[in-house]
């Protein structure tokens, strides 16, 4: 049978946590889209310890499904990132869709549009809303300002990644604490598609994820702590100068000068050592976390 459908194998990884009926609605929409455009695909539902009827409902819906649907049942509630990592490890597709939520604020044809965009040479395609809420804006603002990546991160509804991108991010680090940032830092081409609307808040656990991501994928942590240390050292040194001035010009109480010398010199020394320690720590994170020291997007050779 010949069809005009795409020949690449597609995996769709979907995160589920007590989504109830919405999960079935989402899978219906997803399979409609995939059926229309792809010859071969698989579905992977990551059940993050759902306690409601999400899984039975979906199982029931999947009875007549002709394509493979894999459930990954997580042992206990682990939140989005570890679950999606598991889903990604299970996926076998040439291209993998990552749906972090079953909420669909975007037009359904964006799903295939993302694939078409990928074919034009983007290993990572993010589909992003044009409106976001304040805390997301703050996080991405800080993140992008301190990240060395060529691409800006944005709030996204879902994304499509190529097998090449998955292999690349796994080559540089086994586990991905924050997939989006790992993709952006992979050195491969990343494209954003924008739609009209906003996505719902993703709930709890985002603060620690944000802190981890900033530490691992940006210089924000190092810059912040190094900055504070240097300011404190400068303050201690200023205090030292003030002590000297008072000693030369005024008549301090006996013992004050000596005490101030010890205090200011001591603190200046401590802060100087701290600055060095912070630098060492950031180097260690770098060495442990990032196995590959350089990243290439492609190699182009011009020959006569």
């Amino acid at each position: 049978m010949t069809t005009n459908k795409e020949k690449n194998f597609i995996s769709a990884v979907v995160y589920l946590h007590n989504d109830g009926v919405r999960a079935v609605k989402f899978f219906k929409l997803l399979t409609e889209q995939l059926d229309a455009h792809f010859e071969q695909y698989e579905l992977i539902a990551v059940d993050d310890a759902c306690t409601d009827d999400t899984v039975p409902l979906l199982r029931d819906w999947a009875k007549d499904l002709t394509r493979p649907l894999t459930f990954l049942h997580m042992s206990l509630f682990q939140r989005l990132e570890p679950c999606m990592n598991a889903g990604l490890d299970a996926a076998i597709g040439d291209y993998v869709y990552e749906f972090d939520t079953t909420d669909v604020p975007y037009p359904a044809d964006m799903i295939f549009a993302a694939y078409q965009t990928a074919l034009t040479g983007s290993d990572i395609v993010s589909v992003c809303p044009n409106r976001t809420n304040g805390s997301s804006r703050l996080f991405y603002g800080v993140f992008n300002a301190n990240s060395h990546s060529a691409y800006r991160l944005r709030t996204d509804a879902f994304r499509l990644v190529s097998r090449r991108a998955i292999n690349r991010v796994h080559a540089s680090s086994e586990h991905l604490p924050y997939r989006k940032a790992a993709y952006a830092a992979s050195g491969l081409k990343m494209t954003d598609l924008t739609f009209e609307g906003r996505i719902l808040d993703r709930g709890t656990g985002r603060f620690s994820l944000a802190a981890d991501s900033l530490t691992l994928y940006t210089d924000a942590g190092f810059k912040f702590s190094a900055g504070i240390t240097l300011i404190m050292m400068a303050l201690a040194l200023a205090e030292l100068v003030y002590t000297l001035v008072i000693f030369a010009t005024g008549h301090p109480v006996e013992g004050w000068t000596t005490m101030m010398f010890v205090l200011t010199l001591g603190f200046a020394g401590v802060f100087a050592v701290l600055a060095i320690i912070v630098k060492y720590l950031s180097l260690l994170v770098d060495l442990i976390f990032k196995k590959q020291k350089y990243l290439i997007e492609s190699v182009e050779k011009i020959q006569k």
Partner: protein
Amino acid sequence: MTVDKIILGAGLYGLYAALQCGRRGQRVLVFERDAAPFMRATYINQARVHMGYHYPRSYSTAIKSAHYFERFCKDYGFCLRTDFDQIYATSAHFSWTNAAEFRRFCNAAGIRCDGVDPEKYFNPGMCDGAFLTTEYTYDAQVLKDWFLKELSQCPGVEIRYEHPVERIEKGSDTWRITAGGETAEAPFVLNATYAGVNDIHAMAGFEPFKIKYELCEIILCEVDKRLYNTGITVMDGPFFSLMPFGQTGLHSLTSVTFTPHETSYDTVATFPCQARSEGRCRPGSLYNCNECPARPQSAWPYMGQLARKYLREEYGFTYKGSLFSMKPILKASEIDDSRPTVVRRMSDTPVFYSVLSGKINTVYDLDEVLAQ
């Protein structure tokens, strides 16, 4: 017609038993429902001569396999292919074992396990360990020809093809079996019908084995030069195996998740596809899946994709064809994935044995039974 032994099924276990008894000068009658021997499970499987590597969660199965491995290689060396590197790898994710555990297991079982760099064969991060092992593959067609030649020297052995068992009656000291319109009697019956074991039990009024059935697909592949002398097995979970298929020059591709197409938990295999088999197959009477018009569509897109996800790009392989067969799995062996050979004495006088084994080299377990 009265004989010493009636054997049901002309697979490896059936013909092995027939040959052992035939050589002792006994009169043996073999009833086979297909048109030739070795048409089902003996031929349609990974063709692996198990050394035990496959069972890192069951030492007993592993040690037994290793024990029989040498004996099988000595007796049937002519049908083996041995000149390839058999690589076992442990998947980095979703595996029930890991590199260190696998190494420990091999040491305990006393089988070879030389570490090689996983990245030689696999994409980065896919496998946490890869090991060069000793394991062979057998060629069912070569083995079949040998058995037929040997059996032709035993005047007491007769094989009746296209004789499906129709009725089993118990007499005072013989079994009376009707197959393909022919009736024979013997004081000893060996039921070596593998997936049909419970069909026979139902006819004889015995308690069924507690098994489930999987309709399995083995994919045959043509492989690139780089893979030609290499077999790859990724353990231990939803992974795949791509290894030489006997002496055919082809590789068999199987995967834990995609090889079984459908599963039946009924006592006798019951599948929706039986309704489309144009009357050939029904619960209680299994037709040969490989020749059935209702055989399923190939899972090649999925299995091929799974293997490609793991293997480095330079190891190429292409689809050549599919083989289908029914595989019974003892329900007790799910957790530890063991594959015990079950030989059960169903009746004392007259004697009735049923055998169920998923491995070729444990055929020697029959010796004890046949000595009677």
